[in-house]
């Protein structure tokens, strides 16, 4: 009873705080200085129409690299927590849970039709990251969603772990190498002007941004697929 009262009190206090925040919220009438600089600089200096991708892959690309490290650690961490001794693990689950049921025909056929389409859509999102809404992170998540669909359609499906791991490692190494190339041939680490900026708004433009986007998409897609794959009992 006391517990319940305390919970109600805590939620009410949070609600009071949030109510104050939303009552006093004033909509911005103009961009703050930092956002304004980015909106001006990304198209002019970096040649990318999509300002957000421009920020993620040039000015704050170092953070993106750190984020890739976080994703890698999560994949390793999930593997460590769920891994353990293989036989031991299987024994403990088999007595409690029934074997996975075969997916229905609708899901199976749907997966056969949809997975190639999802894959093409993912490539489109990743490759057009510098021109329209999209980019490596978003496209990588779409790739992982096709992996989920494959697993739902066929729970016994085995992904080639070796291939996923080496693709991911290659993408990571190439990402850093492009960054180092920026250090040597341009103005700093992960500077996108190592490649020619090209004509604004065309597919081959914005220097190294499309290349970094593809590498990021490959890495995120493989990483998330590995994480999802680890959850299969």
């Amino acid at each position, binding site marked *: 009873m006391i517990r319940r009262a305390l919970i109600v009190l805590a939620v009410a206090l949070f609600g009071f705080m949030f109510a104050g925040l939303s009552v006093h919220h004033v909509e*911005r009438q103009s961009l703050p200085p930092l956002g304004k600089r980015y909106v001006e600089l990304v*198209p002019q200096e970096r040649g990318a129409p999509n300002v957000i991708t421009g920020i993620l892959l040039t000015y704050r690309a170092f953070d993106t690299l750190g984020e890739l490290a976080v*994703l890698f650690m999560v994949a390793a961490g999930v593997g460590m927590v769920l891994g353990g001794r293989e036989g031991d693990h299987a024994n403990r689950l088999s007595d409690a849970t029934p074997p996975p049921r075969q997916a229905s025909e609708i899901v199976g056929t749907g997966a056969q039709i949809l997975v190639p389409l999802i894959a093409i859509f993912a490539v489109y999102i990743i490759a057009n990251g510098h021109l329209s809404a999209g980019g490596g992170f978003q496209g990588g998540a779409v790739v992982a969603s096709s992996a989920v669909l494959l697993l739902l359609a066929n729970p016994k499906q085995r992904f080639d772990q070796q291939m996923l791991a080496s693709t991911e490692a290659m993408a990571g190494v190439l990402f850093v190498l492009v960054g180092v190339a920026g250090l040597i041939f341009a103005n700093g680490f992960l500077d996108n002007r190592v490649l020619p900026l090209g004509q604004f708004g065309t597919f081959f433009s914005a220097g190294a941004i499309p290349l970094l986007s593809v590498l990021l998409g490959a890495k995120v897609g493989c990483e998330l697929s590995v994480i999802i794959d680890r959850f299969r009992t």
Partner: protein
Amino acid sequence: MISTVVLVTGLTLILIGIWGMLTHRNILRIIIAFSLIGTGTHILIVAIGYVASGTAPIIDRSLSIAKAPMRAVDPVPSALVVTAIVIGLAVTAIMLAFAIRLYQAKKTLSIDAFTESRW
């Protein structure tokens, strides 16, 4: 106006998440509540970046380079949220992995069964 609606939506989601985390005893439900708090925070950050009658900061036919600083919304919160979504997924994955391990240890998902680390 729009940003206030979005802001209130985000704050409400956070509130629902806090309530769910405190009342439920099932670990999976606590994880869902945690994800709700995360989603609410993302919506909140995007709402803060909105500029009155602004549009997406993508230069195309309807938004020229010259007009962009006047009409685009703040790109910095959007860029932050893109990364935060991926990290949110990663954190959820880690929590679910721990939930599976806890279930293997005690054959239950109730948080009441795990009293050893209680202070």
